[in-house]
């Protein structure tokens, strides 16, 4: 069943976007694959904030890394084959690989990838605290939680991205949420 993109209706200020508003997500992906700049722009507006949030788990400059990810997406979108569901998993796989490469480079350089609160100016401080708690979780726990909560992917899609089974993803999600819940109830000192 095609998924409607709610943001395109909210961002229909331009006349050029009016044509794309009526399109469902599958048509949007198809047009973007065939080289439509309007469809690609709408997809970018829909996925960019969530992707930045997801990449914030890996780096202190998620916007820069997200721009690199979208450049890669635009470069190789013509070779994409699949529906809208596969498209979501595809772009987050690209984002995850880019984050992994960046983390590897920073690990070689000896720089830390710990979250800095100064990078979250203008955001809700409570959200910063929650993100700090999520980053304190083990990497595999935090990643599946972010993919399922922020990227809004189900267990099967996350399993394809991280290379695990659905059951394993469910278990990792449960363990992560349980540990996060313990941190919240203990005031952030749950470790």
């Amino acid at each position, binding site marked *: 069943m095609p998924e409607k993109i709610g*943001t395109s209706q*909210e*961002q*229909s*200020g*331009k006349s050029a*976007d009016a044509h794309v508003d009526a399109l469902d997500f599958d048509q949007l992906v198809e047009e*973007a694959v065939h*080289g*439509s*700049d309007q469809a*690609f*722009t709408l997809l*970018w*507006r829909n996925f*960019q*904030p*969530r992707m*930045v*949030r997801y990449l914030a788990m890996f780096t202190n400059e998620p916007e820069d890394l997200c*721009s690199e990810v*979208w*450049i890669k997406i*635009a*470069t190789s*979108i*013509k070779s994409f084959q699949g529906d809208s569901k596969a498209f979501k998993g595809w772009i987050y796989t690209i984002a995850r690989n880019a984050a992994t490469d960046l983390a590897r480079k920073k690990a070689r350089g000896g720089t830390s990838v710990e979250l800095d609160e100064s990078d979250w100016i203008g955001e*809700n401080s*409570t*959200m910063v605290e*929650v*993100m700090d*708690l*999520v980053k304190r979780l083990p990497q595999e726990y935090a990643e599946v*939680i*972010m993919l*399922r*909560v*922020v990227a*809004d992917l189900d267990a099967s899609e996350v399993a394809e991205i991280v290379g695990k089974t659905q059951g394993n993803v*469910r*278990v990792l*999600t*449960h363990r992560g*949420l*349980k540990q*996060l*819940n313990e941190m*919240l*109830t203990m005031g952030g000192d749950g470790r």
Partner: protein
Amino acid sequence: MSTNGDFSLEDSEELIANLKSGKPSDFQQLRSALNLVAHVTELPPTSIPPILPSGIAQPVPIIPVKPANPRRTIVTSVIVMGMFASASLAAAAVTGIGPAPIVSIGHQTAKFVKGVAGAVSNVVTGGNADTAVTIPPVPTVPSVTLAPTGNEESSSDNSNNNEESNSESLKVTIPLLPNPLTTESKKSNEGKDGKSKEEKSHESQSPTQEDSTPSPLSALPTPSIKIETDHSENDDQTSPSISKTPSLPTALPSPIQSDDSSDDD
């Protein structure tokens, strides 16, 4: 639904599912936290992506590059190889370090260049370049092969035929050697030239045959004759028998004859 202390796998899945629907559930603190993380600020409608597919699809202008000219490539490679070879040979000749063939070739090349340079310098300074270059390889041949008396021009002719291929200077020295040297040269000829005594005795005992054969001295170049006669005249002064050589006046040009007459006087 479980309490906060008993958080099961089903609870976690239900919690995630209720985040989308907005249904209230237990674990309110965890749910609100996840809502905070999941809530994102939408981008303004004027925002544009960092790059568009149409921007990538534009062909990159290719800088025209001239194809390699094969002729120029060959010439350049030959020049470079020649420079490298000459440098390696020069280094091997100077230092003597390197593979033996290269060192030997380097030494030979150095000798050749030295000889050519000497010849050129002789030509420039007015000296005789041919003698400077060609005499050193055959230093002893004239004293060995040239033992003709005036009566033995035929045998000397045979020896000259063998030596004509070497140099013209040998032709000149043949008639100018004094007669007393003929005995020594005969001995050496018997050993080296392989000529039998019978042949030479026959040649010496038949002067009539010599008269019938044309004198080889008539074909000799005049400038070299002048040089050799000067030396022979100086040598002849020590030996009175040289003045008896009969064939010289016939072959010598007139200036030489005048010199001889003046010396005799």
